[in-house]
């Protein structure tokens, strides 16, 4: 927070100096605010015609659409297995819980979730963005949602394109566990 001293013998500091000092002060203030304000990474996606988000920390990777190998003896929301660079992962069709129109599964992106020991691919139709949202922006869910969705909702927030419903993957994990 030091002043820049250019000419110690001069009278009042020149305007350029004052400007530079003000800029520096603002910069530092901004950084503090930034540091104080926790920002959460959000993965914003579309499914069943609505906009949702996962916590970025719960998502390991976003995968390109691929063929899902159907496996017998599984419920409808578990369509089968996928091959991720040689590793085999399960897939959850979250649209089963969210409702709305369902596009072809083989054309959907897959968010690979990994949180608290829960690991699975999650079928999302399209990933819109991966952004930082300030914690303060996340509000409790107010909008009317179907009961099945409410169980998974952690809150909601607004972004320039509109409302985003934040889903909690831990709750999803609980729902799909045997």
């Amino acid at each position, binding site marked *: 927070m030091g002043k820049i001293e250019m000419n110690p013998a001069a009278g009042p500091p020149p305007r350029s100096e004052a400007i530079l000092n003000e800029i520096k002060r603002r910069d530092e203030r901004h950084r503090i605010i930034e540091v104080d304000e926790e920002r959460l990474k959000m993965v914003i996606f579309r499914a069943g015609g609505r906009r949702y988000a996962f916590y970025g920390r719960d998502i390991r990777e976003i995968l390109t659409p691929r*063929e899902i*190998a159907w*496996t017998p*003896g*599984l419920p409808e929301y578990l369509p089968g297995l996928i*091959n991720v660079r040689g590793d*085999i992962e*399960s897939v959850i069709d979250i649209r089963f819980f969210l409702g709305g129109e369902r596009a072809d599964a083989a054309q959907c992106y897959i968010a690979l979730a990994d949180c608290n020991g829960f690991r699975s691919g999650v079928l999302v139709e399209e990933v819109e963005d991966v952004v930082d949202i300030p914690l303060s922006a996340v509000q409790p869910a107010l909008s009317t949602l179907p009961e099945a969705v409410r169980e998974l909702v952690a809150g909601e927030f607004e972004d320039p394109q509109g409302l985003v419903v934040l889903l909690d993957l831990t709750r999803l994990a609980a729902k799909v566990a*045997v």
Partner: protein
Amino acid sequence: MSAPGAVDQQRPLTLLHFFLGGAAFGVDIEQLAAIGVYRGEGEEDDDLYWLHRALGYETPPPYRAPRILSIKDNGASELKPYRLIIEAPEDVRDFDWRQIRPVPPLLAPRLNARGLWGVLPLAGTMILLLDCQRLNLSM
């Protein structure tokens, strides 16, 4: 499954590979005593089982050319020998066991209970490894 916990790297894994209703399966031939053509006999026999029932298919799949597998007992006298009707095999050959992956943790409870113990990804196909001696025949 000779010694527990040890993998005999010398012994190759020979699998009987077949499809049923869109899914690919592989059975270690060491579990098989015999394979024959099924012509519809023995509907009432209580040691004869349809695979699709054992695996919990929602709708019965078509069997183009059904075969009967005679499954050995597992030597632990828990399981009597029985016969299993499957689709005609694609192949019986050696596979690289190092490519096998475990069933994903989310699905493991459901699938292991039905004898599916691993997955062998193979050029666009995922072969579900089936242990016939751990099939849930009560279905």
